[in-house]
């Protein structure tokens, strides 16, 4: 079934716009297990081929651009921002996002605090908003060190947080997902909501970087 969607699935880009191709086949062990499980599930009527195609499309549509729209709205609409910070799940519903069965906690970066999100135990992530987490988010190095030496980890992303700001690390879990509300960059007061979305990267919503400052 993947063949049918081949071109569509390939039309993907990283958060900074560079296309990346990765079609390396998995080991025969892994592929045969996945195929066997999938075919058994279909034979037993647990899932259908249509549902599977639909699920792949759903995951394709969950991209950081959706998160950027939510953050841009919060930057221009104070009421929405307050709702997002106090009742995240409800606030994102107006963007068609259903967080169930998890809860959404949005944490705001300020002059005093920079927030960073990790899942030390696995890979919990606001997938309904940002899509599939990046590979480094799921790897041991990030999971181990983000809670112990966040400033060093941030520097590996090229992010230096000044010493007078506190770095607050949030450890996600099966029931609770975090999203960072980055600071609105200076010099963007007259920017439209739509233009602002261009400054909001996936990484800025995980907290490993800040939103893009225009001209830098």
């Amino acid at each position, binding site marked *: 079934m*993947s063949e049918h969607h*081949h071109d569509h*699935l390939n039309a*993907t*880009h*990283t958060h900074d716009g560079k296309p*990346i*191709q*990765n*079609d*390396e*086949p*998995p080991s*025969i062990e*892994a*592929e*045969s*297990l*996945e*195929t*066997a*499980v*999938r*075919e*058994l*599930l279909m034979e*037993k009527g*647990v*899932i259908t081929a249509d*549902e*599977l195609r639909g*699920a*792949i499309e*759903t*995951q394709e549509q969950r991209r950081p651009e959706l998160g950027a729209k939510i953050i841009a709205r919060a930057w221009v609409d104070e009421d929405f921002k307050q709702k997002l910070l106090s009742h995240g799940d409800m606030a994102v519903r107006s963007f068609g996002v259903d967080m*169930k069965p998890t809860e959404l906690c949005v944490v705001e970066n300020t002059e005093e605090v920079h927030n960073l999100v990790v899942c*030390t*135990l*696995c890979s*919990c992530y606001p997938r309904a908003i940002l899509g*599939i987490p*990046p*590979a*480094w988010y*799921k*790897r*041991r*190095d*990030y*999971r*181990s*060190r983000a*809670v*112990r030496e966040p400033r060093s*980890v941030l520097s*590996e*992303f090229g992010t230096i947080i000044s010493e007078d700001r506190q770095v607050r690390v949030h450890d996600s879990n*099966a*029931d609770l997902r975090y999203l960072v509300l980055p600071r609105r960059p200076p010099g963007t007061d007259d920017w439209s909501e739509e233009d602002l979305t261009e400054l909001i990267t996936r990484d800025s919503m995980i907290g*490993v970087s800040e939103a893009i400052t225009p001209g830098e």
Partner: protein
Amino acid sequence: MRGPQDYGGLPAGLVDPVKNEHEPTHWERRVDAIMLLLFDPKRRLARVDESRRMQEALGDDYHKYPYYERWLQAITWLLLEKGVFSQEELDKKREEVRARLEAERNG
């Protein structure tokens, strides 16, 4: 006691975000889609905590599995435990699939 999944605070290497970044492969997307369906309200055949229990049961092997292979192994065990299919059915199907895939790869 610290389980194999409990990485928080342990010494580890550089994150290297440029190297450790790729768009999901077709195979990864298929595993992801199967998971999405098993987790959905229509089926409710898996929950995050159940899947994690299975992954953590890997013990030291936890570290050896690439991410999606670990998830796939976990949901397979979960489906076996829930009786969605039997070990015999899985073994038979897998053998058949493997022969087919090998023929495809060599062809």
